[in-house]
């Protein structure tokens, strides 16, 4: 089975209060080793609550989470071990920086895992190289960095634990285009270097189309759909009904189709679009 499996997970906030609210209800899915999973859904659809179960920050009200076929709550005392195997990068992770130097901050995670001395230094240096934190930054205060640099250091702080599954909750929120590209690159590089499984929550349909192998669509705490990029983004009507949309490129092709151009509409990335236009051009020549 998959590296991470969620079975009938339900989470209710508020305990026994009158405001019972199922943030996540009866969610089941399975993630294979090395996959990139995108999670999309409108604000308040339970995405963040869902991912906080995957590393044991929240305990399911019902159902369970399996990591490598073992219930992560089988032994509640060992839950901290799961957190180093399933890394979670929160929204705006730069607000969690606290150490005096960049290097010390990135060391926090691996230190908590019990690494020390040379091993610790080696791990941190490796990650710094991977995410592009240059040695001259090691002794700087993380609070003197720019927004994009802070984000990079904060992400490195989670990656330094070398998790087998790494989850990002809107990793590019609030960054400029260059910053967004950098973060996306870091995520790809980490995956290539470690073969880790990646789960990304995002509101950018374009990024999802570009990166993800599979997309999980959440709506009101339930899974609306879990399938390939093609499966998810072909369902234009369905996505719009739950407050989501298709990538902008796809919109262009949908409108062209409406104008009577004989064209495929299952185009989700700019590259796909170029290929399709080339075909169209050749088709016109042939005609």
């Amino acid at each position, binding site marked *: 089975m998959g590296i991470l499996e969620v079975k009938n997970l339900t989470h209710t906030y508020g305990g026994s209060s009158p405001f019972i609210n199922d943030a996540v209800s009866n969610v089941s899915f399975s993630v294979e080793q090395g996959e990139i999973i995108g999670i999309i859904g409108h604000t308040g659809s339970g995405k963040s609550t869902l991912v*906080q179960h995957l*590393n044991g*920050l929240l305990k399911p009200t019902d159902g369970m989470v399996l990591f490598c076929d073992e219930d992560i709550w089988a032994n509640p005392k060992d839950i*901290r071990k799961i*957190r*180093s195997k399933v*890394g*979670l*990068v*929160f929204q705006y*992770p730069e*607000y*969690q*920086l*606290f150490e005096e130097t960049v290097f010390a901050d990135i060391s*926090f*995670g691996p230190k*908590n*895992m019990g690494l020390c001395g040379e091993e610790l230094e080696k791990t941190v240096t490796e990650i710094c190289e991977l995410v592009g934190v240059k040695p001259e930054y090691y002794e700087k205060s993380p*609070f003197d960095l720019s927004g994009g640099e802070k984000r990079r250091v904060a992400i490195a*702080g*989670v990656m330094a*634990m070398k998790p087998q599954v790494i989850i990002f909750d809107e990793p590019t929120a609030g960054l400029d285009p260059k910053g967004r590209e950098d973060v996306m690159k870091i995520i790809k590089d980490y995956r290539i270097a470690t073969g880790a499984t990646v789960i990304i929550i995002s509101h950018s349909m374009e990024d999802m189309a570009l990166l993800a192998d599979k997309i999980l669509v959440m709506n009101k705490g339930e899974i609306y759909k879990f399938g390939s990029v093609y499966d998810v983004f072909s369902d234009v009507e369905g996505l719009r009904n739950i407050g989501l949309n298709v990538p902008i490129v796809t919109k262009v092709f949908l409108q062209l189709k409406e104008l009577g151009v004989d064209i495929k509409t299952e185009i989700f990335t700019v590259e796909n679009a170029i290929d399709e236009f080339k075909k169209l051009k050749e088709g016109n020549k042939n005609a």
Partner: protein
Amino acid sequence: MLKDITFGQYYDSKSVIHKLDPRVKIVLMILFIVFIFVSQNFFALIFSALSVFLVVLASKVPLKMYLKNMKAILPVLIFTAVINVFYGDGGKVLLSFWIIEINTQGIYKAVFMALRILLLIFISSALTYTTTPNDLTDAIESLLSPLRFVGLKSAVHTLAMMMTIALRFIPTLIEEAEKIMNAQKARGADLESGGLVDRVKALIPILIPLLISSVRRAYELAEAMECRCYNGGEGKTRMKQMKMKITDFYLSSVAVLMCAVVIVLNILF
């Protein structure tokens, strides 16, 4: 766990007490505290207790809520009682050991003090359960307004504004602290085990980001306030004007009457 912290523990049950002018409530609470302390003998104290209990009933806040407050203060209560047990002079000696002597007077004193503290907690809880934190600060500002005659007008307003902001940001900071705690836990931070020193050390990764974000928030808030032409109280009007109603007068008179009864009971016995 952090969510369990209640502050400005307003409980909306729309009772007579809720509808009182918050200024009247504050003054009456002070009056109650005064007559709880003025009570010199058990008759007066029991009468005070009855009056406090009447207020508690009238507030329509479940007794359970009041008792929840007692839990936190229980150690203080027990400590006070135990200390007082040893300080009775006179009465029948019940126990004598070395220089320690416990007598009936001591027991009497202990019970008396404990009851007093109990009543204090009840009456002040009654105020906080029935008044929103904002009403409270407004009332404090209004009650302190005579200070303007001694040249402290802006100080009063500033103090009230500071209190309002502090109260307003408690839930925000709790939420923020929870987020940071989760983020550090995701990085393997251990907040739940270890000795005292370890636990205090484990707080650093939470306190520093929290402090930094509070400072950032403060700057942002100050700018937002200035953008909306806040200039510190001068010429400021209120959306909700506080007005004394006829019930305020009735209930104040009843309270004053109770106070008088306590004094009479003090003299009689």
